[in-house]
């Protein structure tokens, strides 16, 4: 996810989608497997229609995709888990680089050391 790629409407939808505990739970289940909408519905004390609505909100926010498989609708998150985890860590690094830059500014000019900057990634 690149900041520039997202329009304001998408940001609101994303925030709205992540702000609900049921939807976060659905997201976790979909990251771990590829459940059908009906299987998801069995996991919550709410109607099938209500779960379907949650799934629709997540889909609009671009967090999951639905694919038809026979009579079932399968729900999954975008990309495979390893790629997504890597992307999330990269985004976290971006967040922290911004934070350290702001810390340097607050400490005053000259507080930031000139020196070698290295970035190493480790993956398995």
């Amino acid at each position: 996810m690149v900041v520039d790629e997202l329009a304001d409407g998408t940001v609101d939808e994303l925030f709205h989608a992540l702000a609900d505990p049921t939807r976060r739970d659905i997201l976790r289940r979909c990251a771990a497997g590829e459940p059908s909408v009906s299987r998801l519905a069995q996991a919550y004390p709410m109607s099938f229609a209500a779960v379907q609505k949650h799934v629709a909100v997540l889909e609009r926010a671009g967090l999951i995709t639905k694919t038809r498989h026979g009579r079932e609708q399968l729900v999954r998150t975008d990309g495979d888990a390893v790629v997504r985890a890597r992307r999330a860590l990269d985004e976290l690094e971006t967040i922290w680089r911004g934070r350290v830059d702001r810390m340097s500014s607050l400490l005053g000019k000259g507080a930031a050391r000139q020196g070698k900057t290295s970035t190493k990634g480790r993956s398995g």
Partner: protein
Amino acid sequence: MSITSVDVDHDNLTMTLIADFDAPIDQVWELWSDPRKLERWWGPPGYPATVEKHDLTPGGEKLRGMWRVTAVDPPSSLEFIDAFADSEWAPIADMPTHTVRVELSEREGGTRMEMRSTFESPEDMEILVKMGMVEGLRGAAAQMDPLLA
């Protein structure tokens, strides 16, 4: 640049960042301990983290994002669990959390900051980073507002 290294460990879901500042350790510590300073760098520009309650003692809290401080030893170390609170400042129980450990040390007349961020699971990490990005995006949007008015 003040970032000396960033080490991302995909297997253990941790990110370790080392930054060196040409400032005394007490000044760097204040960036963490003084809520007025903290809110100027924690959130992205235009989206200052609103720090309403900030108490760097074990059990102390910073709300929305909320910190549950688990260990503190001024001015050299701080460990907290970064969590989320709702609009009424009540903790959101099932919201994923992550642990942040910060260590400051004096080094070559300046201060070295080592920050390690640890997540419980890849799913939790994804959700949290997305929330973090959303904060950033909202900040960018807020900065644009005056320009568009």
